[in-house]
């Protein structure tokens, strides 16, 4: 994992600028939101949502409104160029803002918003046509429209390049047939970023092409799938004779793998940092205290373990951000971050369950106890989503440690 580092200018001015920016962020948030510590706040342990359709839509709409407000005030897309409604600021500014924002009670950020803002928008910036950038980037950054990821198929998950949904060229348009699965937020999205096979004769990585798909188009059918955690964040998507104009094609014909890799790269980077899902060490301490268990060495040990890794993970994410800021080329940091994050989700869930004992087996009606099932039952999902543990380890082993590739 050696990255070339070009030291950044860190003059006095830079530090002053950041301090001023922090103050401005706080002033703006003060005028908009209650502070987190002052607010009466029900603890939330869920990792995935377990809501009815309308409730989930309402939650997403709240998140969208907040995202648009942030972008308009210059705090939502701050590292983006002014052309896209951004301010061209640095990752440090973004981190500072994120830190300050956490002090306030913000509307929840649904995965669907993350996918749109953090995965699809940057992918289009890198690979989309001028028209697509003009058409999509700003609405996606403001979440006026949402976009889901139509990658996985029943027969192609880890081996994403094995997908078989077909896109057949027909003059100036394409006809698409096939089935996607595990598509998060497809039922709430206006758009989908689709990877389909356009040339079955080409080697599998070469014969794919990417498209933007309007989800309300004739022939697109979305069927929610219930998750083990209860809710239906993800879906099956059936595509039957869907006709797409060629201007919806993202990148060159046959370049779909590159589009997929670009999005997946952003996904690993992004999920490495999502630490706000589910319960955390502070919640574990509260739980153990309310159950009167803090006298037990075993309990204190589990709390400590969770804290040690949670803190180390936060430091690691900050360290990687610092390296990137200094000009290091990103390598496998996202994959390492994702593994560390999901391992800690599991650590926290297991600890909570062990403290709760019978109370997590059957709801006793007490507050804040059975609710932990939402963490316990959600954690396995993120070990799979965005590439399973094994796939992350392959990536780190081969790209980070330079070990020989496994036969493919």
């Amino acid at each position, binding site marked *: *994992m050696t990255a070339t580092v070009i*030291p950044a200018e860190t003059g006095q001015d830079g530090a002053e600028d950041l301090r001023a920016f922090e103050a401005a962020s706080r002033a703006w948030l003060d005028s908009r939101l209650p502070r987190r510590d002052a607010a009466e706040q029900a603890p939330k342990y869920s990792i995935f949502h377990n809501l009815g359709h309308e409730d989930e839509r309402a939650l997403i709409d709240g998140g969208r409104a907040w995202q648009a407000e942030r972008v308009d005030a210059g705090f939502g897309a701050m590292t983006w160029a002014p052309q896209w409604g951004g301010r061209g600021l640095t*990752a440090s500014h*973004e*981190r500072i803002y*994120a*830190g300050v924002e*956490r002090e306030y009670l913000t509307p929840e950020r649904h995965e669907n918003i993350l996918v749109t803002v*953090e995965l699809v928008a940057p992918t289009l910036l890198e690979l989309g046509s001028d028209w697509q950038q003009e058409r999509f980037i700003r609405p996606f950054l403001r979440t006026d429209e949402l976009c889901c990821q139509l990658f996985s198929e029943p027969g192609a998950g880890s081996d994403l390049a094995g997908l078989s949904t077909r896109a057949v060229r027909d003059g100036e348009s394409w006809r698409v047939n096939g089935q996607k699965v595990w598509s998060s937020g497809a039922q709430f999205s206006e758009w989908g970023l689709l990877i389909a096979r356009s040339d079955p004769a080409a080697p599998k990585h070469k014969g794919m092409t990417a498209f933007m798909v309007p989800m309300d188009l004739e022939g697109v059918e979305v069927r929610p799938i219930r998750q083990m955690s209860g809710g239906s964040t993800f879906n099956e998507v059936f595509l039957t004779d869907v006709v797409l104009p060629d201007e919806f094609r993202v990148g060159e014909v046959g370049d779909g793998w590159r589009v997929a890799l670009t999005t997946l790269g*952003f996904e690993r*980077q*992004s999920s*490495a*940092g*999502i*630490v*706000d899902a589910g319960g955390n*060490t502070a919640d574990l*301490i509260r739980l*153990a*205290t309310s159950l009167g268990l*803090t006298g037990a*060495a075993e309990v*204190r040990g*589990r*709390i*400590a*373990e969770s*804290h*040690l*890794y949670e*803190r*180390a*993970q*936060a*430091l*690691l*994410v*900050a*360290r*990687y*951000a*610092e*390296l*990137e800021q200094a000009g290091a080329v990103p390598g496998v*940091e996202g994959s*390492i971050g994702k593994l*560390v994050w999901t391992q800690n989700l599991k650590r926290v869930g297991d600890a909570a369950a062990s403290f709760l004992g019978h109370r997590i087996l059957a709801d006793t009606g007490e507050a804040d106890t059975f609710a932990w099932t939402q963490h316990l039952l959600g954690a396995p999902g993120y070990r799979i989503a965005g590439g399973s543990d*094994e796939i992350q*380890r*392959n990536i*780190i*082993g*081969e790209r*980070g*440690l330079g*070990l*020989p590739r*496994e*036969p493919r």
Partner: protein
Amino acid sequence: MPINLSTEQKDLAETLDDVWSRIAPGHDVWPSIRELGLTEIPFPEATGGADGTFRDLTVVMTGLGRTLGSAPYLSSVVMAGLALLDAADRDTRAELLPGIVSGARTAALVCGPGIVTSAIRGEVAAERELSLTGVQHAVVDGESAELLVVVTHGPDGTELALVEGSAPGVRRSVGEQLDGTRQLATVEFDGATARRISGPDVASRLGDVRSRILIALAAEQVGLARRCLEMAVEYAGTRQQFGRTIGSFQGIKHKLVDLLVAIELAEVTVLDASSGAERGCDESGTAEPGGTELASRAAAARVLASRAAMTAAEEAIQVHGGIGFTWEHPLHHYFRRAKADQLLFGDEYPYVQSVGESLVHGRGVTRPRRVSEPA
């Protein structure tokens, strides 16, 4: 303070790597340490020191961990040196530190595994004198050091005492030991006369010294772990079995990735701890104790670094197969050192407990920075 090393610190790490990369574990690197002035790092200029940062010191410890070069660096500079600097009285510091700072003399800290505790009793013999009795095992460089800085217990509580290693009533011996690259001696006192050198507030100052020692040792453990991983990756990239390079087997690849992840976590924790561990005592002798915050950062570094080092040494041997189990292969020295480091100041369990205790009692709950935006 940035989490990553500064450019100068990276240069120092590279220099050490260049100088030491070809040596065998246990090779004496003390001459090169003195030549490079590394003994001076953590000491103030007034004592002849380089007034370096604690971070600089951990860079040296990491280099020593990578190579397992032998030198009384942990014992004389880190343990005895920092104990004298932070916890001894002013006259003693003025008199003794210059020799230790230049590396002309070496000292060892005689203490128990808890560092602030010891099995040595000190009876008051005269106003500035203690009479020492008791046996302390596993004293780092306890036989070779010229001077012994002794943590004792007497009627007035914890005291710091100083005695020449060759003084009457002092018996020092080295038997067989698990790790052959670092001397762990038995030091016995039978009514030896020692000078009382406790500075003000000696017990709490020693507590801070202890945190620094743990962080320095954790830096060594991280260096050791990285080197083991490198050896294993190199081997896994060349060794063929079943017509394939063994590194292409997931059983091996994933093992090595898990090591990398453990090392990344340990390293960043050590970097973080080392930035909070600057010298606790200024020239006038005013203490700026790191207290519980420093102690909890040291405990975190201790736990994650012990795990990373021990697993790295253990699994690197597995990846090497039979050759890894031979006397000729350097890995057993790494295994031995990793085990010794893991147990030198008590195994990790009490440190985990100490972190847990301060958390449930609401002390030192520094909520980690949470980053929900992509980096």
